[in-house]
């Protein structure tokens, strides 16, 4: 098979795997937070929320930095 098509197919598989992984991570974190909340473990809920906020902010900060430095 043509190498461009093979590269494209591998890229596509990688892309979809990353999307599935991301959805699974979102599902797992949401489930964990829900269980902690219903169990009354507010310390874990607070910790989880802070971790999510830090991760989200870091992700967006990297995006902003790439944009500001003209990399994207």
């Amino acid at each position, binding site marked *: *098979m*043509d190498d*461009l*098509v093979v*590269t*494209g*197919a591998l*890229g*596509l598989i990688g*892309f979809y795997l990353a999307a599935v992984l991301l959805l699974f991570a979102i599902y797992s974190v949401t489930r964990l937070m829900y269980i902690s909340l219903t169990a009354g473990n507010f310390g874990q809920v607070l910790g989880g929320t802070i971790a999510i906020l830090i991760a989200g902010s870091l992700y*967006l900060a*990297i*995006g*902003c930095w*790439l*944009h500001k430095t*003209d*990399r*994207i």
Partner: protein
Amino acid sequence: MSHILVSPLNWGLGHATRDIPIIKNLLDHNHEVTIAACGNARSVLEQEFPECRCIEYPDYPVPYSQSRFFLPKFVAFFPLILKALSDERKNLDLILAKDCYDLIISDNRLGVYSPEIPSVFITHQLHYHLPLVFWPAELLAVAMNGLVHEKYRHIVVPDNPPDMTALAGKLSRPGTEATKKRVYFSGILTSTHNRDGEEDLDYLVMISGPEPQRTRLEKILLPQVQMIEGSRVILLGRPGNHAMQKQSDTCRVIPYASTRDKENLMNRAKFIICRSGYTSMMEIAELGKRHALFIPTPGQTEQEYLSWYYEKKCWFHSQSQYRLDLSVDIRLAQQPGYTGFPKMQKTEENVKRLYDQVLAQYIDR
């Protein structure tokens, strides 16, 4: 005399029309050109160059979306595009087996190259623009572009080098070493000519682009155009419908205009209202028009980026079709703060330079 295969993508007519000056130049140098294309791109080039042989050469399915959310549909289309790419490679082998070619020119067709024949790729998008939240995908696309560009001897970008006059902004900025080594900035390439004449038309409104957004824009614009004063012509971009509708003495609605008629109207217009597609931008730059209003197609990230970029550079005013208030936006667009595109070299010189500096080394031997 050399034999050149020219293959434009059939996603809109922009790819085919910007190849017209290149093909004309090749024919002027007495080379033989074979056109491999499909759909409207093939029809336009067949009509323009009856002396050239045309081969039916299908490309990729068009993932235009019914809604503003173009991106998810585009991603869902990836497997179909990959299948079409595989077919494109197989079909190219058949084409190359039947005839001898000295050069291949691919306009945005990723699979049209050969390791044995010098191949040149034309694109104005070295870099894709995505919403900030998808930055990893944007980086991935830059890397993938680099892999594609490795297959070609030259990457011809119909834009000025990335400086103050670059029309495509970050879109035409090379991101990988493979691209940087091969890139050649040809300057704008368009089939539209600047004809010296009087600008006697106050407003030209060009409603174009993929459906259903074209019809939506028509519904938004038509009632608003009636409210403005001055002579107006509205091109609806509906192929197959040529009957002219006259709204009033000063307002004409033309369902479909030929390339020549459109060129005449653009030359006559003092103010142009259109989508911010890159082909239209090159046409406006070629004609040196200084007053225009751009309305990006919703969900088309390239057009949305160009609109934002021209606003930032204070070249032209843009407005979303959902927030459009024509009389207000025209007034804003005519403010002296908007300067129009900077002065730049025109297609005639650019295409000559492209031939001398890039193409001639493969075909004038």
